[in-house]
């Protein structure tokens, strides 16, 4: 069926199967490969996107359900700089603290952190842990991910200008 979707601030009409998940649509139709499939049953968070400002698992949403929603994927969170390779403050902090290893859960993790920081510019470590508790990382034990998000919060609020 034909639907109009708004992905990364680009509104277009697409012809999709009604049973297609938003995750598969983003990956296979849009060819945006930064959103990853992990469990496809809503637990691991690797497929997390921003839907109307909230962190949402794209494997649990059908593409046809997302009509009228504003969808941002990992490729869209720093859209202006995406092609130049420049990082936003949060992405940069993930690199600084090495808040990842294999990189598979990372886009989902960055998205969850982005949503947290958009709502709470000065989170505690506990609040960060809560915000990423729906994102499984098998590599890091989360410690350096929490470090990265705390660092980003500090830098974004101007408390750390180093």
């Amino acid at each position, binding site marked *: 069926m034909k639907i109009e979707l708004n992905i990364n601030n680009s509104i277009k009409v697409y012809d999709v*199967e009604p*049973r297609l998940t938003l995750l598969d649509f983003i*990956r296979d139709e849009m*060819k*945006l*490969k*930064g*959103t*990853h*499939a*992990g*469990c*496809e*049953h809503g*637990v*691991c968070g*690797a497929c997390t996107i921003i839907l109307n400002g909230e962190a949402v698992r794209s494997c649990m949403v059908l593409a046809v359900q997302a009509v009228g929603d504003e969808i941002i*994927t*990992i*490729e869209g969170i*720093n859209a202006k700089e*995406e092609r130049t*390779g420049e*990082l936003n403050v949060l*992405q940069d902090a*993930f*690199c*600084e*603290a*090495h808040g*990842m*290893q*294999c*990189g*598979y*859960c*990372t*886009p989902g993790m*960055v998205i969850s952190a982005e949503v947290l920081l958009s709502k709470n510019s000065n989170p505690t*470590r506990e609040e*960060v*842990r*809560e915000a*990423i*508790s*729906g*994102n*499984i*990382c*098998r*590599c*890091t*034990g*989360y*410690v*350096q*991910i*929490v470090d990265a998000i705390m660092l980003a919060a500090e830098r974004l609020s101007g408390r750390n200008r180093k």
Partner: protein
Amino acid sequence: MEKSNYNFVSKNRRPVEDKRFVTGHGNFVADIDRPDMLHVAILACHEPSASIDEIDFSAALKMKGVIDVITGKELASATKPLMNGLDTPNVKRYSLAVEQVRYAGEWVCAIVAKSRAIAEDAAEKILLKTTSLKFVLDSEKALLPKSPIVHENHGSNILLEKKFVWGDVFQDFKKSDHQISYNVNWGRNSTVPVETFGVVAEWNAWKNILDVWASIQMPKFSDHIAFVLGLRANQVRVHYDVDVGGSYGVKRGIKHTILASYISRKLHRPIRLIEDRLENMRSGDAHGPERKFDVTMAFDSDGIIHSMKMRALDNAGAYAGRAPFQLGKPIGAIVGPYTISSVEYLALSVTTNKAVQEAVRGFGQAPTNYALETGIDRIANFLKMDRMELRQKNLIKSNQFPYIIPSGSEYDSGDYQTVIKKVFASKNYKELIKERDLLRKNGLMAGIGIASCLEPSGGNSSFEPLLNSKNKTTTWMESCQLNIDASGTVTARIHTTSSGQGHETLVSTIVGEILEIDPDEICIARPNSIESLPGNSPVGSRMAIMLGGAAGKASKKLKEKIIIIAAHKLGFKKSELIYQKGSVFAPDGSSMSWDEIIEFSHRRIDQLPDGMDPGLASFDIMQVPTGGNLPKDDKVHMYPCYSFEFHLVLLSFDPIICKPNIRSYTVGHDCGTVINPSIVSGMTYGGIAHGIGAALLEEFAYDDNGQLMTQSFLDYLIPSSHEVPEIKIIKHSTPSPHTFFGQKGSGESGYLGAPAAISSAINDALSPINISFLSLPIRMSLVSDAIANQNE
């Protein structure tokens, strides 16, 4: 290399891989689209053991978009069985079940279609007729004479039964004041990466080349594919630039790859097979050890442990996989960090009707460490001696290195006492006991967990000849290639995939260190398997030692050539020259710059010493330090390096719900010289998280009917950010004498001791009410039930 102040080694350099991952621009296997690619879905059989009577896929084939259906019979007629390294020719394993299924979920058919969704729809149309057979799930039962036999032609369920006696076990037992016996069980779990296994295979009929993109972490992967498919190895092109979304040992999808490759050759189309989570959990053949230990320790009243008898019985599952060898690696550290002078070890691996095992982080070492550490705690309890006092009495001392253990391995270096001292300087032991006792006074169950253990590293494979005398493996090399191009920039080639270990960072750091150039200006290339030198992939906690070593040695060769060129031009002896940041300086003040050296080597062969080749390139194929010998008298030296870790945990829970709260977690870690601090600390944090999962949450649990009950993330529980506490790492460095910078392995750190430490903490918490758990995972429901039953 004797140098204490490095420019880049041990410095907080940003890992170079990270940028592509934070922006979503990794190159994972599921991201690979090939023109006209077809997709595979799998039909699995739900029975744990059954003969396959009929597979009717005619309706499936008629569906629009369905291209083909492949059965095990077809596959077996065209391919050889998968290899397992053992001498078990009648335990045959193919990608699809042939005539018989041997575990619930085993793959029966592959459906090939234009999309995965169509293939899955078609799978539902296939009629599979089977006859149920008797099955066995328990490893002890599998040993009984009347047990159903998983592979009839093999004659029994025993894949491996080998008894070792190292040292005078008889005398040591006789002279000891006491002995205690205990059983512990390591539950079946695995590393369960967030990315499932996937492969894209594409047969190129014009070049006679099979291209393979896979999320793989497997030694000799392309050789294995070629052997099974009857190709030459130089016809299999495995692309090493695929980012692997976590592995920790298990990403060895050889059965998936053979299947996809076979189909691609048959249909002349690219074939994509990406496991879904159910396939991954149930039938990805990626479970980890499931092990029962019977241990007897002999010791004196003063706490000195003399000898140990250990029987390790591993439930391999339906086919050999790598399971039996995972009983072999722990032989290289069979006494842990302790001075136990003799050991009897019975290694037993049996087939059952469960899913197949693969290599899991530590390759069997974590279960063995858990068995050992449980014994140490129990001896302390028996002697009414403090657990730390007992450990201190038995730990190898820093002046005893190199230390040869009864099974033949030589520990390279260590200073366990200092690591422990540093941990207690950070977390005072007496204060911790007071804190625990205060929690107990306040009505909580509280316990201190302790574990000290080793991480054998350097990835030698000498357990293979030790367990299979027909296997004569004495090298487990790794290689690195360097080139300085005509414009003077440096490219390093590494010959493996990576799954989060930061190999690009490792190699660029080391090449930059030795050539004294900016590591961020070094390009790291990953050629495919045909263009590569030999290597054995990142297994056995080996890449800092082996890839780092090969990169270091190749860099030294380049530096040597540069100095020879300069010596020729400047008219000095090599030994009189000083290399600094790419330029070479002579004692008379003359010098040769990097640009001149590049100019000479690339354009002016007339200026080079006679006989010297043009260009500036080098490579090194590195042998495992201290390796190379076959076993003798059932003993063999295994690993070049031994990292040490000491875990100290305070944990509490209320006696009703029993949800564990890890109140503090401190770990002392010594892996010699650290190449990149944030990579090593990340590994340790992650290993501990993984160990917490193994200790408290994760288990592939089968019901009595042979059905896997934990096959999604809703029931196989992986620690989230709520379950993993803040962890404090106390670092120490005792360099290894055998490696380039003194580095040791760290890829398995944390995981090797965390399960033992958590188990120790829970049992300490329960000790006032005389409850103990000798089986992992210790789920909170089990603890809660045990306390409730006692109160009844």
